């Protein structure tokens, strides 16, 4: 008791022990690098290099395509080989810049700042924007937009999402254990923007070592604290995390800022620190390469644009014939067709499952057992929403709050009849939103 959490949720098999003790090691990219122009929410970036150009590591190769967009930097030195459509993890073909890596890693010089505290708010936001920082937990929402709410004085909480509630993933955990100072420095910079806010690190209690490390570091930071959270999926869901930390509930039509909160993931805060302090753009991040089908589950600091295949190779390759490859966690990640797909700013993991539990069972009739209702962190009736979805009953779907679904997948996870509940709801949500946009 006493641990903060939300209502509902599930306790999937954690699988974190596979990679949790493997220290972060850097993987230097070898082959060609692919940089999709859409690695974030919002307008795609616009290439500013041409085929045949030679580029340096750290050089901007694509400009933000609008305010809600983000620039992209090359993480290697080499020559632009092509600008063409390439397949990305979510399955789409996306316009991408392909760079032949010369293996030299000749780098541009970055503009570091001596004293971060002397920077103005505009300077900080500009440096975040220029560096191409986006929400690296998976959504990829441009961070400079998040850091520019209408009323900055009304922001009371900056929440670092250190929950890492997806099973198997350990990248954020390793960051907290190995680079907690950078995380705290990132938080400090963001707090500089919001004079009335306090910084809270929300960490699930299955990471005692990270909690101890972070507590030690924030001891002397009057504006920061560590909040221990119950280990439960989806504790790291934005709305669930805000509720656990502040007791405030927001719905799909509200922004965290409406509840006086801004939520950023561990990797994002570290990127903010690197961008503002050292002037280093987003080129590298940590991802977990793990699962029963990986020879040596690892946490890698890799260069974005590297193919998944290279990361798997660095982790000792595949163990036997894998059943399914997932970019991201097992609950919300995207399964991928092949390993020949580029990593992006939002790639937090590659999971190699040795059995495919999603298709291993034939779905049978819904028996109305209500397990999905108990599990739903949004207090919806998933089985009913799925039924409305399958029948195309849009009006009913909205009336039963279908649009509030956060697509966490807990309902499918618990369904004893093995029905694709979340999948039906997600599809209907997309259709309903598309229909609403038409009006």
């Amino acid at each position: 008791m006493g641990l903060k959490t939300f209502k509902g949720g599930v306790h999937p098999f954690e699988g974190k022990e596979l990679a949790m003790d493997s220290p972060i090691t850097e993987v230097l990219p070898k082959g060609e690098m692919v940089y999709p122009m859409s690695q974030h929410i919002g307008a795609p970036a616009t290439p500013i290099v041409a085929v045949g150009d030679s580029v340096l590591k750290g050089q901007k190769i694509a400009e933000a395509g609008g305010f809600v967009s983000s620039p992209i930097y090359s993480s290697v030195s080499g020559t632009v080989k092509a600008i063409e459509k390439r397949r990305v993890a979510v399955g789409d073909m996306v316009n991408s810049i392909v760079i032949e890596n010369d293996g030299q890693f000749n780098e541009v010089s970055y503009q570091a700042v001596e004293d971060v505290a002397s920077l103005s708010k505009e300077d900080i936001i500009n440096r975040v924007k220029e560096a191409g920082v986006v929400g690296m937990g998976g959504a990829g929402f441009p961070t400079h937009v998040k850091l520019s709410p209408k009323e900055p004085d009304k922001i009371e909480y900056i929440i670092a999402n250190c929950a890492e509630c997806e099973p198997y993933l350990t990248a954020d955990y390793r960051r907290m254990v190995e680079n907690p100072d950078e995380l705290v420095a990132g938080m400090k910079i963001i707090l500089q923007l919001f004079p009335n806010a306090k910084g809270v690190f929300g960490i699930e209690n299955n990471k005692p070592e990270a909690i101890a490390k972070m507590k030690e570091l924030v001891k002397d930071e009057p504006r920061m604290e560590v909040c221990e959270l119950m280990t439960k999926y989806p504790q790291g869901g934005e709305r669930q995390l805000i509720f656990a930390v502040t007791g405030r509930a927001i719905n799909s039509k509200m922004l965290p800022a409406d509840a006086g909160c801004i939520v950023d993931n561990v990797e994002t805060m570290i990127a903010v620190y690197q961008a503002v302090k050292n002037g280093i753009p987003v080129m590298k991040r940590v991802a977990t390469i793990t699962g029963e089908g990986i020879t040596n589950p690892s946490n890698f600091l890799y260069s974005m644009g590297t193919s998944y295949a290279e990361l798997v190779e660095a982790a000792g390759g595949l163990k036997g014939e894998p059943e399914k490859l997932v970019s991201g966690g097992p609950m919300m990640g995207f399964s991928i067709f092949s390993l020949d797909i580029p990593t992006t700013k939002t790639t937090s993991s590659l999971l190699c499952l040795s059995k495919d539990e999603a298709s291993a069972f034939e779905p049978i009739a819904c028996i109305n057992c209500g397990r999905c209702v108990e599990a739903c962190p949004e207090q919806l009736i998933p089985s009913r929403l799925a039924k409305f979805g399958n029948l195309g009953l849009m009006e009913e779907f909205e009336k039963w709050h279908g649009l509030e679904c956060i697509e966490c997948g807990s309902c499918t996870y618990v369904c004893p009849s093995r029905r694709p509940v979340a999948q039906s709801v997600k599809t209907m949500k997309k259709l309903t939103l598309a229909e609403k946009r038409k009006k």
Partner: protein
Amino acid sequence: MSDLYKVSSSPHVRAKDSTSKIMLWVIIALLPASFFGIYNFGLRALLLILVTVGTCVVSEWIFNKIVHKKNTIGDLSAVVTGLLLALNLPVSLPIWEAVIGGVFAIIIVKMLFGGLGQNFMNPALGARCFLLIAFAADMTNFACDTYSGATPLALMKNNAATEGVALMDGVNSFDMLIGNTAGTIGETSAVAIIIGAIILILAGVINLRIPGSYIVSFAVFMMIFSEGGFFSAGGFDSNYLVAQLCGGGLMLGAFFMATDYVTSPITPAGQIVFGICCGVLTGLFRCFGANAEGVSFAIILSNILVPIIEKATVPRAFGVVKEAKKHE
């Protein structure tokens, strides 16, 4: 392109629970009551149990064969229906009537409406009510080797209507708790049923929303309106209330039949409303009806109300409450 990996929409992992496992838990939880029934009423009780279970499973299998549907007996729900039906029958019921009950439960109440998950009425209770009307005499004949006849509830109803006889004459509420009374095979022992209920709760199969609200609302109703209630001539009689709670299949109904997933509301608030409906209707039937029992009819009537209850109790999604307040 043959070397592509499998893809599907997330999530990619699943919990271990399965529908047949849930059904198995229900069967296990019904074993104490079944064993007590066999101990109390003799081997004929076992025969009836085997007959109804067999009839239910075979009916489902044949139905699926005839309509060319995939076989569904593996989900074990037909076994649960058969077992529940048997526990709701008097031990002296002719075998052929029990067979008709099993066929009715599966074919008419369940399969014709679309099979598992689609029936709007609990199959076992539907069949019991059908048998009660079709074979009224056999279904209310509780005389057997061990007991001479009337159930405790019928006795109390008689006593209340007879001048000069104490309300609890011939009724021992402790016997009712243990189950040494006349009644249907599985309903007599409150203790055995509660042991089963605890198994179901611990296994996470049911929660207390429906049985809790059912039993509490029934108790409150009886305290107000019954012959042993606060406003009756004889004043409140706690023994009478215990007898009412233990008798007439109330425990079996509250924990095993009102909680039937398929025929109860899925909304948490709706489950409480549903429990109250069952409780009030049972009380109404017992206090003012011609029959001493009423659990079966109360539950199937409440089953019919489920769609309306659900519509009225759609929960407000997380965070939506706050927004509504904001606009005031």
